[in-house]
């Protein structure tokens, strides 16, 4: 075998090169096709106002960026973004805090009704938000939480807990038992162990859950649509829906400019934290 190999090296390399070109060509074509709607969004957003009427294609004839500033003020992007940031931040912090505490107990302690409670949380993974909107609406009306941030944060937190508990419980269980046994002998309380040993060691898992919850609440529009009806309470997706369906301004370029602005933070997060996305997605789906 070894003796014959050099004779074929040239032809083998040529075949290898051809194969590589073919594979990369196919993959590039598929990726371009997948990215096409996103490219179309960006290209339409930088076209001159009104150009889209005549040119719906991918290549802009003229580039005009002034409309980003116009849209920024017209839709009051800072206000919308502030609402989105408040809701997303509160949701992430509360889900991580409440979820990690519960997950620690489920992973490491034995207590009354542990297994039934854990399964009760797991069932929440399945419950479609839409199935609960009627009573959630009533709840918010009764407690005076309509048009408050709390009115959407509460449901987001409760609906986010199952995934958080599922993921963190299995992460905590993978940490060595010696960690807490030594601390328990030294007289540390359960809370100290959770707070100063388990949480610091679980940063990767916490980041993964955090990104997921952040993305879900940042992008959601169903609950804001129902519970945030006043202008100054609206979130970015909701404000975007209203702007893109309004009859006052039907210029595509402006509408796509808003969509681009809304997408930029998400893409930045994706590019910098892709590793955590992948580990979150694969947490349950890949057997290690």
């Amino acid at each position: 075998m070894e003796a014959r190999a050099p004779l074929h090296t040239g032809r083998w390399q040529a075949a290898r090169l051809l194969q590589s070109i073919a594979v990369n060509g196919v993959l590039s074509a598929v990726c371009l096709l997948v990215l096409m709607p996103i490219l179309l969004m960006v290209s339409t957003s930088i076209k001159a106002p009104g150009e889209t009427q005549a040119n719906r294609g991918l290549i802009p004839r003229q580039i005009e960026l002034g409309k980003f500033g116009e849209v920024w003020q017209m839709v009051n992007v800072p206000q919308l973004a502030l609402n989105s940031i408040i809701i997303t931040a509160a949701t992430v912090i509360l889900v991580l805090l409440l979820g990690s505490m519960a997950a620690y107990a489920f992973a490491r302690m034995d207590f009354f009704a542990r297994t039934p409670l854990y399964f009760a949380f797991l069932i929440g993974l399945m419950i479609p938000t839409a199935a609960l909107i009627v009573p959630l609406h009533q709840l918010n009306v009764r407690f005076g939480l309509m048009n408050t941030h709390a009115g959407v944060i509460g449901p987001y937190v409760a609906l986010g807990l199952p995934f958080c508990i599922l993921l963190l419980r299995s992460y905590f269980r993978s940490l060595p038992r010696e960690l807490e046994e030594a601390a328990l002998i030294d007289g540390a309380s359960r809370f100290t162990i959770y707070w100063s040993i388990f949480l610091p060691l679980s940063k990767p898992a916490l980041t993964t859950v955090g990104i997921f919850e952040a993305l879900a609440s940042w992008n959601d529009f169903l609950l804001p649509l129902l519970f945030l009806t006043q202008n100054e309470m609206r979130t970015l997706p909701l404000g975007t829906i209203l702007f893109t369906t309004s009859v006052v301004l039907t210029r595509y370029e402006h509408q796509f400019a808003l969509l681009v602005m809304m997408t930029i933070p998400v893409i930045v997060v994706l590019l910098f934290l892709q590793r955590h996305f992948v580990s979150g997605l694969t947490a349950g789906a890949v057997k290690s």
Partner: protein
Amino acid sequence: MPHPISSTWRRFARRHKLNSGLLFVLPALAAYLLYVAWPTVSIFEMSLYDWDGVSATQSFVGLQNYVELFTQDRAFRLSIRNNVLWAIFATTVPLVFGFLLAYTLNQRLRFRNLYRTALFLPVVVSSVVVGFTWAFIYNPQAGLLSTTLAALGLRALDRAWLGDPGIAIYSVIVVALWQSLGAWVVIYLAALQSVPDEIYDSAAIDGAGFWQKMIFIAFPLTRFTTAVLIILSLISAVKTFDLVYLLTRGGPYHASEVMALGVYQQAFKLNHHGYASALSVVLLLIGTAVTIVQLRLYAHAEESHE
């Protein structure tokens, strides 16, 4: 010497494991009871009433809402059909193409991470952005899809993509497939990377090529991942709301209706809160049925793993 009552209590607490573990779970449990458990119980109760959501009086109608739902509601029948169609396409199409792409990406490729990021991008983009952009692409005559068909001389294939009752739901499902494909690729890729190279090498010595290694080695070895992906897709097919709301609002003539959108419309557009609750119960029960399958599979997989 301990107080007799406190020692009785302590014994009781120890026997029933009433310890600080409960305190750890309590805050999460409180939020969960208020925003998930109580609403869940509440839809069962409300589904037995006729109520507009505002007035003080609710009239008890027994199972009338359910009877109406299953015998007279055309939109509901169409929504069941559409959720089933959604589930079928959302599990089969990404299964084939997602696996194929992941398998291709699992070789030594210089731009692998670039390809992966590109394919994954639609997964994180907000549905609002996705919906608006695709409505623009689907625009009859003027949209990119119609103009591309015209440029290719295929004008005969042009349709009112979102306006034709016969194809509206398929047009929406295509967008959903576009949105989810990247997640399948990334998850399959992670699973394929855990398959040791030696298995492929020994198959190559036996003469197996690209396709044979894919079908007879890679696919069977990642079957657990396939099972989980299918379950996750089934769940999201039951839950689906965003894209239908954004692209068609369930129209035309309820042709692209899905169950979650039906709840929203019955409750908040038509003020049928009791009827919407009955629909919610059906949605919830279908969802739970899928969950039970999921939990069984997880338990089974963990068992065989340990």
